[in-house]
């Protein structure tokens, strides 16, 4: 790997900005994401910032089953995010559909909707209902380590 590529990768590992995207969650996972930014967990010490727009984001934190309403919007937001970007499916619903997998409004799960746009998308799964903030930090750290 050339020096330039190594520097890019180092930057990406050390400063992943996240964009928070709710595709039909019950708000529980979203509350846990907000926990991450509070002084107790303080993910800014790992370089994580909450980006206000997908244009600035390196990781999409997707919560909730992908509903029929949300699916095209999720795909559009993924297209609008500058690559390379990670997709982090947070919670049982985003990973598999959870208890809503039989619901009439279910049009997911999230990874299928993303793969339809980009078959090579980098997708990370954090199961749990909701997952603990510690679990999110551990998973994202592992995923960034594997890049």
């Amino acid at each position: 790997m050339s020096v330039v590529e190594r520097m890019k990768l180092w930057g990406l590992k050390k400063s992943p900005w996240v964009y928070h995207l709710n595709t039909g969650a019950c708000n529980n996972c979203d509350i846990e994401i907000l926990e991450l930014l509070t002084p107790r967990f303080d993910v800014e010490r790992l370089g994580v910032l909450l980006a206000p727009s997908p244009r600035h984001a390196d990781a999409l934190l997707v919560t909730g089953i992908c509903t029929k309403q949300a699916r095209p919007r999720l795909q559009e937001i993924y297209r609008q995010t500058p690559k390379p970007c990670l997709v982090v499916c947070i919670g049982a619903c985003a990973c598999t559909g959870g208890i809503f997998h039989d619901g009439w409004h279910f049009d997911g799960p999230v990874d299928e909707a993303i793969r339809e746009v980009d078959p090579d998308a980098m997708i990370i799964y954090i199961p749990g209902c909701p997952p603990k903030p510690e679990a999110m930090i551990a998973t994202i750290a592992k995923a960034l380590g594997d890049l």
Partner: protein
Amino acid sequence: MQAVIAVILGIFGTAFFGLLFQWVDRLVTARIQWRKGPPIYQPLADILKLLGKETVVSERASVGWFLLAPVLGFTGVCVAACILWAALLNPQPDSGFVGDLIVVVYFLIFPSLALILGASASGNPYAAVGASREMKLVIAYELPFILAMVPPILKANLSLKLTDIVQAQSDGVTLASVGGFLAFLCMLAAVQAKLGVVPFDQAEAETELTGGAIVEYSGPALAMIRLTRGMLLFLLPLFVITVFWGGVHFSGWGWLTSPLKFIVLLVVIVLMRNTSPRLRIDQAMRFFWFIVGPIAVAAAFISVYHHGML
């Protein structure tokens, strides 16, 4: 040779200190909020990461102007930095002309103008609102900012050369006089607005405009905007120190007092940013026109009287 050193130091030195100051800003903010804060290499990591990312340009954007704007802002800051460093490195009054106060003031407006230009070219409604707010803010703070230069210029016997202004303060800084102090306070408010930090971050306003003027930028263009911000965070305190506080000296006590001046100004900026809420744009304009503006005028008149020209 001197010019080459000034240019290299002006660009790389300012970028280095700018990123360092950005880190201090984020660390102090974190500590105020009882957080641990980011590591020292964080601003550099942000810049490197953004340089490695894709640049997405909206379909409705005017591509040329959109991508040119960050470069313009960056260039303006670099030129202003070079002029200031040149005056710093060679403070003798007989050194050649490299640019005076007016040129520096002009180039310091560049980042704001570039932001307005880039935001207007981006084709995003949020960016359009951000651009209009930035425009109003520039109209509001430029007058007090320029009026605040009157006491230092009078002290230097109506000379606009940076070296003369520094030299004139060798027997007592501008800050120590009544007019100078009032002008210094006006300057601090204007610096806060020039940096675009709370309480004057209406143009960006993450919570209401999702990034406002910079919402459409991504990749290297955003990296350039962030680097420009960082350089300004070092450059504006340097400018204030040069004009009001006797400049920077690297001999004897200067090694101790010069960094201290920077620390004091940076702490003031960071504390103001962390202890105040964002003003509405009309409140910000009213603040600059009806509070800061008259104080700057008063400061100018006091120093005119003080120097026996009235």
